[in-house]
């Protein structure tokens, strides 16, 4: 199959690749570019483990064709830490024991980031709603909800 060129920004740096037409963004990120932070849980759009942020919107990278991402601004969990300092969400997930096997964590953090970018002080219900497309099989979810609420408080304190 013919390869197609695709160019986008990943966590602030320009990427240009030739990919097989029909390659998902998930596979392009993991196998071509080497960003393995998005996880392939189901490859059919139901677990949320592959979630990334494309132009500010939460997207499932397993259902997004890489070739449709030309010129896009893509963010993944791998790009969240700045200068070796963890993002407040990452810090809060660690502190709250919101990660056990860790497979759902990058997707959860992406979903939470989009929520906090829009709603800096969400209610518990808003957190539940925002993460409800993401499946976790380990934690029982409660520590994840608590981590997101903690991160929201930490960010708003820093901003104040």
């Amino acid at each position: 199959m013919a390869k197609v060129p695709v160019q986008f920004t990943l966590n602030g740096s320009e990427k240009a690749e030739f990919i097989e037409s029909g390659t998902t963004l998930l596979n392009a990120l993991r196998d071509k570019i080497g960003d393995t932070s998005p996880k392939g849980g189901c490859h059919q759009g139901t677990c949320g483990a592959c979630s990334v942020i494309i132009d500010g919107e939460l997207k499932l990278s397993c259902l997004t064709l890489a070739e449709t991402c030309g010129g896009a601004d893509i963010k993944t969990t791998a790009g969240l830490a700045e200068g070796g300092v963890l993002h407040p969400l990452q810090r809060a997930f660690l502190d709250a024991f919101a990660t056990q096997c860790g497979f759902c964590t990058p997707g959860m953090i992406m979903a939470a980031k989009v929520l906090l970018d829009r709603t800096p002080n969400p209610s518990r219900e808003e957190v539940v709603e925002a993460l409800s497309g993401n499946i976790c099989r380990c934690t029982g979810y409660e520590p994840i909800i608590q981590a997101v609420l903690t991160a929201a408080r930490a960010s708003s304190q820093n901003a104040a």
Partner: protein
Amino acid sequence: MAIRRGRGVAAINYPTGMNLGGDPTQALVHSTPTGNFMVTLSSVDLGQGMKQIMAQICAETIGVPTDRVVVDTADTDTGPHCMGTFASRGTHRAGNAVIQAAKEARQVMLEVAAEELEVNASDLETDGQGNIQVKGAPQKSISIFDVALSAHFKRGRSISGRGMFLIPRSYPEKETGAMKPSTCYAHACTVAEVEVDDETGEVTVLTVKNVFEIGRALNPKMVEQQLVGGSWMGISHALYETTEPYYPNRDHGGTDFNQYLMPGLGDLAETETIVLERPSADGPFGAKGPGEMCANPQIPAVANAVFDAVGVRIDTLPITPERILRALKAQAAG
């Protein structure tokens, strides 16, 4: 037709480990030339946190900070024997083996320090910060770093220890069949409140209150997380999870993790979890196995709550809307 409320309670005992042909785990501990300690096990950390707990146990026994201990659980070919990670036995069995190995290593460490300080080993103590000092005269001290260097390069000693913990096989008495399946039991009790829609058969779990008696929480945060996740999984066993809903017929089984149901974010019950600590006689620092038992009491508690709500006993898991409706129909038919 109405939404009916019910409350159920259940209590459990849960054995720590099993009694097969005897239930052993072994451990080895040795120091590196710079006075860090290596614990070698073939017990597996499946994500339950065994490495952290074994590091704590080793550090506490030798008298060094936890970050001076490295735990290698990597290789069942080269590590000392372990029966395995199952039956909530890891902390209890491997922990006891690590204590024994660490005690032996500590003794050698104190002997080398005694030679360096020209005192009796029995007069020495650790300060928990990486030093060994004379009891009552802490100015006379030596770092464990220097003790390890001395052992390796000057005195030709191996600061190491062997540990073994064995629950011997218990044979049943011929007449009565009585035996001792386990030496140590954790306990739990759950009260669950549910709403049952007697038109649709749907169950909503409103609150879950758990008390867990786990001996001693060696790492309280990790224990808490195990119990919170476990309580959620107990609800999942009670109401959602099955691979074969019409067993032995294989139809309608989930084909992947999306169809294999568990409670989602929208299904979370308000959950309360209390830990009671009654140190066990033969556990490492009093610990029992909190691993699996924490997902058990919710199941009978929910079944009892459903009975309290709509008066039907569901004795097959999971308690699905279909099973409740069939039971209600049978009840109405008298």
